[in-house]
């Protein structure tokens, strides 16, 4: 977000709902995660297992695929950025939906926080921030693994890390906004229904060209598609103005998500 955009965004948020202490919520999450480190660490292995199983296993059957610029690249190099994008999405969505719903309705955690100077915006930003931090750690680890396997073709790949953070931010913000509308655990089937097909069809495992045109258009609307294309462009070093379009997509998601999440939390918590 650029500097002039900030005050405009500011006015969309409920008054008096931000104490500027979202960081303290992240301190809390970090302290709590010391006791649940296993769940924390497991988030790193999921994309790694996919990379090994699909990249080497399936990859030996598939051979090379055309990269973003049409040049052939190995199957593992093709799916690795896709998995990076998908893990950014999955981690952020899990943190901002299931975890937030539990804290909101069962642990009454946010109620206790709002008895302090913290406001709903601190809560929303703090939770999203934590999801980001976690996503950032996973992305760093995964990028290192990619480098180790020789799947990084360009120094542009360094930018895949901030890109992964932006993607995670966007999914966490939207996830939290969606969670604020959910009434029961049944509603979370909708999350699975949104996330799983997106994971499978957003050019994570094969290029867009395999689809008929109408399905291509559908896929091109999905956020994960933009994340995958963004990552793939960066790790393969095929960088063009098109990447800015993908970035813009996520900036819009962030703004819409944060504003809705903060407003809804305000309504839900300050009754």
């Amino acid at each position, binding site marked *: 977000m650029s500097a002039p955009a900030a005050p405009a965004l500011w006015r969309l948020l409920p008054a008096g709902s931000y104490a500027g202490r979202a960081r303290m919520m992240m301190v809390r999450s970090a302290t709590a995660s010391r006791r649940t480190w296993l769940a924390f660490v497991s988030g790193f292995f999921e994309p790694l297992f996919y990379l090994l199983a699909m990249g080497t296993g399936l990859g030996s059957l598939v051979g090379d695929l055309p990269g973003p610029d049409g040049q052939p690249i190995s199957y593992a190099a093709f799916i690795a950025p896709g998995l990076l994008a998908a893990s950014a999405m999955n981690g952020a969505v899990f943190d901002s939906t299931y975890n937030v719903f539990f804290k909101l309705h069962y642990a009454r*955690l946010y109620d206790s926080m709002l008895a302090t*100077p913290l*406001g709903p915006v601190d809560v929303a930003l703090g939770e999203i921030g934590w999801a980001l931090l976690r996503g950032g750690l996973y992305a760093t680890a995964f990028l290192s693994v990619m480098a180790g396997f020789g799947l990084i073709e360009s120094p542009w790949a360094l930018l895949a890390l901030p890109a992964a953070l932006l993607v995670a931010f966007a999914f966490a913000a939207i996830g939290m906004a969606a969670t604020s509308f959910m009434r029961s655990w049944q509603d979370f089937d909708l999350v699975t229904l949104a996330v799983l097909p997106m994971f499978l069809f957003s050019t994570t495992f094969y290029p867009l060209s395999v689809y008929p045109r109408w399905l291509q258009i559908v896929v091109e609307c999905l956020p994960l598609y933009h994340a995958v294309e963004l990552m793939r462009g960066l790790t393969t070093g095929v960088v063009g103005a098109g990447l800015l379009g993908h970035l813009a997509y996520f900036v819009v998601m962030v703004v819409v998500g944060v504003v809705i999440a903060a407003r809804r939390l305000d309504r839900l918590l300050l009754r």
Partner: protein
Amino acid sequence: MSDALVQARGLRKSFGAVEAVRGIDVDVAPGEVFGFLGPNGAGKSSTMRMIACVSPRSAGTLSVLGMDPGVDGPRIRARIGVVPQLDNLDAELSVRENLEIYGRYFGLPRRHVKEKAAELLEFAQLTERAGDTVEELSGGMKRRLTIARSLVNDPELLLLDEPTTGLDPQARHLLWDRLYRLKREGVTQIVTTHYMDEAEQLCDRLVVMDGGVIAAEGSPAELIGRYSTREVLELRFDPEHRPTAEALERHAERVEELPDRFLLYTVDGERTHGDVVGAGFVPLSSLVRRSSLEDVFLRLTGRTLVD
């Protein structure tokens, strides 16, 4: 009354069609322990949440520490402590971390919070349990921890919503003792309860609340003096030979009929007992006691506090 820590005029709270608080006037002076006594659903928690700046008021005026909760919520919350009706401790943190992290929400430095947590653990008699998770604590310990947590920012005003509901007598007395100490240290407290003994023990001044309105206000002794007699004679009868309330009325200032007994309000319980027996009534059992806030509530609302 301009030095009141909390001042409400015509304060109201509605949830859709439900009117939880229907226009109350309240003044809480610095240093006092102020009580809301009332049964479930009286609107006590709704009032407390408005004072705690976590629930916008529907109508009326409210000032807390001289500020408007609708405008200065975060600034007010920085200076008050809140013990909610239901414990909402952080189950993912240890007992000590619950205090330390909570202090950080107030923007207090890490060092300060560490010292404060040690002091509060001692105050709550939880030093030995500092490393445990919250689930391992008993109900009384959780309540003590919640109270300790509410003190982490050295509040000027402490809001306690039913601090001892659901606790055994021993745990209650320990908690009351901690609240006395805080009172001696000059911490203003607002307490809600549906226990008349708790209200009598803790409160300098209280309001009797029912159906979202205030029925009476005063110190426990004043209220008893105003709405009840000095003594109460409780009489139980064999259902076969149970007299009517009217038949007993000529022997006391007032008679209340409860499902299992009669309450005869009188200056001298022993004498009234003699009169009743002399008139030929044979109670199964009788008891003379001093009037309590329970009697005040019964008089004001026609109902018992805890049913």
